[in-house]
């Protein structure tokens, strides 16, 4: 029977695009209808539509599909394992005494926002390069400090992402593909360097982290020959109700549980070990950076695959939001203006106090957790509008702009479907759906710190530029 004749005999099941009244009339007649939430592709921009058309030409679609398949397989098959801790100067590629790494795409001292300037000056004081914040600012402006994005040194950094030579780093090795990713240690609490605070208490904590916490973790991991399989732990944390960007309660417990047997075997005093455990229990964010390094490690393995339209980086420096795409190798950033984060704030703060979106932590959404996995974290649905249904719809919505589901990291509430994985530039531009990022809000001024948390979307311009570049680059 021909397809047309099959249509005559089968029950009508319509996909309705455009006028909503047509759906209503079909429903009255008991036909099945799916009404699309449709938007003009590329916001109706003919140049973008032409680029989409070019990428969808049958002669290139197959190549893109194959490249994207490889990219997401690399993300899914990556096995990031925490293998140790050490100071940045010892491990991070290209690190020098005068280098300060920061979050997001490249930025100069002059253009940095308040929180990042606060963090940079604090770090300069912490490193002993200047005696106080004022002179630190002069030094930062003098040209003697090398500023560089974390991402361009195999690193990721939370919020301002400021990372200096003597800070201790996670070392995460991708057992499948061999690459390594690094990230700073969590400072816990809200008045902290990465949020732009830089007073004496902040510097003192950094010194303790350098002299006690870091070395204990380093020595502990030296006693663990197999490392800690972070992806297994991430999967467990998701099952326990974390989305591992803003909620890290379960993940932190699992991580410290895995570290404890080794920590207690180190040569430090009981008092120092007690300080470490008290520090970890002082806030749930201890494992936050750990997951970021995991995500970075997996995504780096998928970067630079010719013809792939998969996003491998999303990061913000507080002024610009930048992305990198697998099919365009190296450090080519596509950027747009950083947006305001919308969400609940600590008492006494108003939206106009907030600094714009900042941090490399959107690497978690790039991997498929955080905002993408909200459905698994009902405890913090207040961040996304308050209801569990909202949280679920955030996750299901992300499936529209991603390539596949990661079967290794699953969401119980959605019948164990995998997290949405592999943001596809083409799908973002086609649908107009932007990635959902849940993130902290730093005060716009230096020296204050975290004032809330909420939801933000990247600027669409970054994706539009990436699409145009991909359409030109396609081989």
């Amino acid at each position, binding site marked *: *029977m*021909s*397809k*047309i*004749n*099959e*249509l*005559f*005999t*089968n029950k*009508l*099941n*319509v*996909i*309705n*695009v*455009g*006028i909503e009244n*047509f759906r209503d*009339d*079909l429903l*009255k*007649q008991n*036909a*099945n209808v*799916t009404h*699309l*939430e*449709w938007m*003009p*592709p590329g916001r*109706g921009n*003919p140049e973008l*539509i032409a680029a*989409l*058309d070019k990428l969808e030409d049958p002669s290139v679609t197959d190549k893109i599909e194959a490249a994207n398949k490889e990219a997401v397989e690399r993300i*899914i*098959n990556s*096995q990031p394992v925490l293998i140790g801790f050490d100071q940045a100067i010892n491990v991070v590629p290209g690190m020098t005494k005068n280098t300060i790494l920061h979050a997001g795409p490249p930025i100069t001292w002059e253009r940095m926002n308040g929180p990042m300037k606060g963090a940079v000056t604090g770090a300069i004081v912490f490193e002993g390069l200047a005696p106080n914040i004022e002179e630190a600012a002069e030094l930062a402006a003098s040209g003697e400090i090398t500023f560089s994005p974390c991402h361009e040194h195999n690193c990721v950094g939370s919020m301002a992402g400021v990372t200096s030579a003597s800070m201790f780093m996670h070392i995460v090795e991708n057992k*499948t593909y061999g690459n390594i990713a690094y990230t700073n240690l969590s400072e816990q609490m809200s008045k902290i360097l990465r949020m732009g605070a830089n007073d004496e208490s902040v510097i003192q904590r950094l010194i303790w982290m350098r002299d006690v916490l870091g070395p204990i973790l380093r020595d502990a991991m030296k006693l663990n020959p197999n490392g800690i*399989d972070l*992806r*297994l732990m991430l*999967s467990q944390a998701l*099952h326990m109700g974390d989305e591992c960007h803003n909620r890290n309660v379960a993940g932190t417990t699992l991580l410290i549980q895995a570290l404890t047997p080794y920590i207690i075997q180190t040569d430090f005093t009981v008092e120092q070990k007690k300080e470490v455990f008290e520090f970890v229990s002082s806030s749930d964010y201890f494992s936050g950076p750990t997951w970021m390094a995991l995500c970075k490690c997996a995504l780096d393995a998928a970067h630079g695959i010719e013809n792939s339209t998969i996003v491998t980086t999303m990061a913000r420096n507080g002024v610009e939001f930048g992305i990198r795409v697998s099919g365009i190798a190296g450090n080519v950033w596509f950027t747009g203006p950083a947006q305001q984060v919308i969400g609940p704030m600590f008492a006494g703060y108003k939206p106009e106090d907030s600094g714009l979106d900042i941090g490399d932590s959107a690497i978690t959404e790039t991997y498929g957790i955080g905002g993408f996995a909200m459905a698994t974290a009902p405890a913090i649905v207040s961040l996304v509008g308050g209801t569990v*249904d909202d949280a*679920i719809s955030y996750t*299901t919505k992300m*499936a*529209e702009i991603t390539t596949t589901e990661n*079967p*290794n*990291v*699953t969401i119980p509430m*959605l019948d*164990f*479907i995998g997290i949405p994985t592999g943001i596809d530039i083409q*799908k973002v531009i*086609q*649908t107009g759906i932007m990635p959902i990022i849940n993130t902290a809000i730093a005060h716009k001024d230096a020296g204050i710190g975290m004032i809330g948390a909420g939801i933000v979307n990247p600027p669409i311009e970054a994706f539009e530029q990436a699409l145009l570049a991909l359409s030109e680059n396609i081989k």
Partner: protein
Amino acid sequence: MTVQVLVKPNTYIDSVSLMSLSTKANQIEIVEQAIIAMGTEMNKEVIRNVGLMTPEVESAKTSDLVIIVKAASEELCERAFESINVLLTKKKDSSKGKSEVKYSTITSAVNGTPDANLAIIAVNGSYAPREARKALENNLHVMLFSDNVSIEDEIELKTLAQEKGLLMMGPDCGTAIIGNVALCFANAVRKGNIGIVGASGTGSQEVTVRIHEFGGGITQLIGTGGRDLSEEVGGIMMLAGIKALEEDDATKVIVLVSKPPAPSVEEKVLAQIKQCKKPVVVWFVGGNEEKVTQAGGHFAKMSKEAALKAVLLAGADESKLNKRALNLPLIEEVRAKLKPEQKYIRGLFSGGTLCDEAMHIAMEKFDNVYSNIQRDPEYRLKDVRVSQDHTFIDFGDDQFTQGKPHPMIDPSTRIERFIQEAKDPSVGVIVMDFVLGFGAHEDPVGAMLPAIIEAKQAAEDEGRHLEIIGYILGTELDSQNIEGQINKLLASGATHASSSQNAGLLAREFVVKGE
């Protein structure tokens, strides 16, 4: 007994899910014993204890998924693995349908609803071809409502549909009935044994409604879009439609509705009619009888005639049909009321083919018939806002719908024009259509009513009779209540015509002078 092992490296499933998967795997009939577990030391111990350890399992890592099957033969093991794979992936289905999933693209909607078989696309014409192409690539039949789609795009889409054996209705296709479901603008009509392929929306609606009134019914109404029978498009969809209806067991008679095709296309259509095993009624507005008859088709000059021929060919008993003959005494009565200077018809239509039909009926007796849709440039209105002699206006044409909804939904433009025409002392008759059915205005007569009452009163005050003919296209199954619409119209003093054809004939006969 055979034991086989499958190790999926780097695949994580949590332990509780694994237990339930193992339970289900052990329930598979051909499975003697099955273990699905992560390659942890603890699990390896269990596997050792039940005697299923192999070197492969021994070397599996904590992050590897291990599947062990014991069954009667190697082949059964293989089959068991297949069943287990289904268990591993099946979970996706059950999450769907629980809450309404919203999709933004045709592709994702198709992935989510694999039974989808048709896409209705009604978006701005500059985006429409792209969406239609996606739908066809996803093996959906398409009804493309959008207009302003280039003929190049239309040809490309229809060619793709042809290659894939799919329907590509449109662009600019507003009417279809598939599987007894009305799509976009169509009337609620009985299910029956007559299939229609229509290149004109309201023309097809009219034929379905007349067939319904004659007691017949419809199998499918396939819309093609108005350009399908042009030289460039070559009738791709009409030819495909005829073929599909010919192969459809439920269809006994086929009706074709269109404006006259391009000559080369007409040849193709007629050639196919000649081969067709089923009777084909052809109503091409203003078409040529001889060619159709030669091809073995049944020619109809007008819409009601087309419906009548179809129901008779489908087996209706002619003696039992009410053919609703023209009311001849009424014609005499109205002619007597009109003054000598009231010479002209003004047709104000929301349906394009209804306009065309009334116009062609007028053209049989008059040679000064003007319209915005006249094909002869000489008789096309210079300014669509100004009527001339006999004038028939299709308010659904592009000049009137730029940035406005179709007059079948929004009657405002037509109301204004009606008021203007009613004041013209040279006008004898104003004829209008009122389209009911899915997609249409909920009370089209009611919207025009105050204007009709006022205009008739004003004419009377000036000492002239203004004849208004209303035709209501609809069935008693339509939601607008046709009975109520007719009553409203009659109460205003207008004349009700029982069909599009009769509306045209009455309008013409009322103003014919000196016969």
